[in-house]
């Protein structure tokens, strides 16, 4: 592509890869936590709820710093990962994905939980009387019925993940080709004399991707709902 430099393309590809990984990592625990919050009755449910929403209300830099403390090479989890598996997260693409996943986690949980609240528990009861155990019930009834929420949550989280800045730059730093995602590249470009054109191009791409994500989420949600027999035939 003529109008983007190699470095710019690298940032776009890296952003897509980081956001995708963040969603893939975040989705299974996101569904689990949403289910616990919607259906579970256990002590500490309120604390879990607050914890999940923390990234929405805290400065991203603080989240990045907390990750650095926890997953840094000398942090409790980071040291353990490094010693046992040789996995180092700080200053790597994996680290950028982790930071993005943590930041977009509340978006996934909220979206999944909303759709879970809309699933009639009476249907799960009916499945029970038909002989379906808990896992069976979840996989055949609950999960398919909340699929629209899972999908739109994943797309929103992906779109938001493309733009994650504060937590990524704090935890994974700004290394071109390694952790320099779109917003970080834009930031770097604005800091470079004569980088205005590059910043504008990247910003336009950023904008287009975000809009595409929202439109896609809406469309997919609608198709899925129709497929599930709600609204229309």
């Amino acid at each position, binding site marked *: 592509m003529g109008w983007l430099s190699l470095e710019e393309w690298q940032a776009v590809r890296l952003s897509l890869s980081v956001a995708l990984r963040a969603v893939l990592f975040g989705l299974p625990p996101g569904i689990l936590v949403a289910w616990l919050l919607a259906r579970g009755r256990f002590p500490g449910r309120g604390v879990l709820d607050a914890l999940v929403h923390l990234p929405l209300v805290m400065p991203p830099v603080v989240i990045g710093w907390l990750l650095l403390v926890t997953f840094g090479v000398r942090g409790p989890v980071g040291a353990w990962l490094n010693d046992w598996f040789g996995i180092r997260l700080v200053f790597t693409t994996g680290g950028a994905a982790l930071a993005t996943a943590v930041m977009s986690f509340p978006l996934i949980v909220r979206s999944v939980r909303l759709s879970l609240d809309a699933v009639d528990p*009476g*249907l799960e009861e009916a499945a*029970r009387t038909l002989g379906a155990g808990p896992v069976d019930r979840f996989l055949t009834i609950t999960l398919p019925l909340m699929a629209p929420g899972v999908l739109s949550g994943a797309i929103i989280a992906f779109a938001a993940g493309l733009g994650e800045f504060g937590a990524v730059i704090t935890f994974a730093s700004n290394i071109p080709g390694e952790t320099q995602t779109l917003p970080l590249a834009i930031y770097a470009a604005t800091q470079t004399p004569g980088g205005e054109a590059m910043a504008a191009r990247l910003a336009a791409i950023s904008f287009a991707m975000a809009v595409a994500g929202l439109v896609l989420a809406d469309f997919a949600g609608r198709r899925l709902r129709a497929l599930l027999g709600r609204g229309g035939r």
Partner: protein
Amino acid sequence: MRHRFPGFALDAAFAAPTPGVTALFGPSGCGKSTVLAAVAGLLRPEAGRVALGGQVLLDTGRGIMLPPERRRCGVVFQDARLFPHLSVETNLRYGQRRAPPGTAGLPFAEVVDLLGIGHLLGRRPAALSGGEKQRVALGRALLSRPALLLMDEPLAALDAARKLELLPFLARLRDRLSIPMLYVTHALDEVDQLADTLVLMQQGRVLACDTLEALSARTDLSLLAGRRDAGVVLHCTVLAHAPERGLTRLGFPGGELLVPLDPAPPGMRLRVRVRARDVSVAMAAPPALSMQNVLPAIVEAVDPGAPHEALLRLRVGGAVLLSRVTLDAVRRLGLAPGQAVWAMVKSVAFSRGGEVPVAPPPPA
């Protein structure tokens, strides 16, 4: 079983015959659906015991609480609860796939045929009418090869026409199944058509539990006797038809009844309800009367009914009839227990679902 909700206490105990249809009957909020939920395992009562045949499903005293998925109770809910994301066929097969191996039950094709849902198999539940949904829900419960079928007001959400459309299916099913059924309803016509045993409930308590025929002849149960359509349920046998007179002769333990010509073949057993308001009494046999059925009877009891009304219990041979008369009539005729009167039956209400085909009597 006992259970307390805020402002409501349930204390109920009854035994239901196997097989057979037991109707839990009572006004809304009397706790009948709660009993059903506890039997299905969807609600845990504070104290209680539920046993099916030899298997204990729930015994809070011994700490036994089988989860619903292992109770083998097929449940038909008032609101069908079909899975919206699955086709009708997949809905039907949902329970069948999860039925314990080695259990007997009706085959798929027969259930589909019995309920007349063959043309719906490829559709989604959203494209079904209320009656069709309930039929599919019924089929789904049946195909899970239940040991007990529970129905929670399956017709309550339907309009009168759909209800009439579904009742014959339920009756057919009742005759075809060899498992017990527990049927929750507040509609007496459903009870008449389907139930063998009646459990009468009010405010969380069981008022009475007996056969439908026995309970319908009691005058002390205001829940039944106080209704406008109160009356005795009789088992009758079709004796003969008289097409030239447009009449059918029915035999019952107290004698014979003439009713408008009925298509049921002679020998067929029918269940009819003789409403109290359709029975009047006379002190002497009336000489000429438009009513066909005038039977000698003995007054057994005179019970107060609604204001200015009395409910008479009349012994007619081996059967009992109820008659609703005014208090004024009781005074004028001096009606009292032990008195011989003539009971005049104006009409009977048929319960189509009560038909029981019987083998012809063996030659003498």
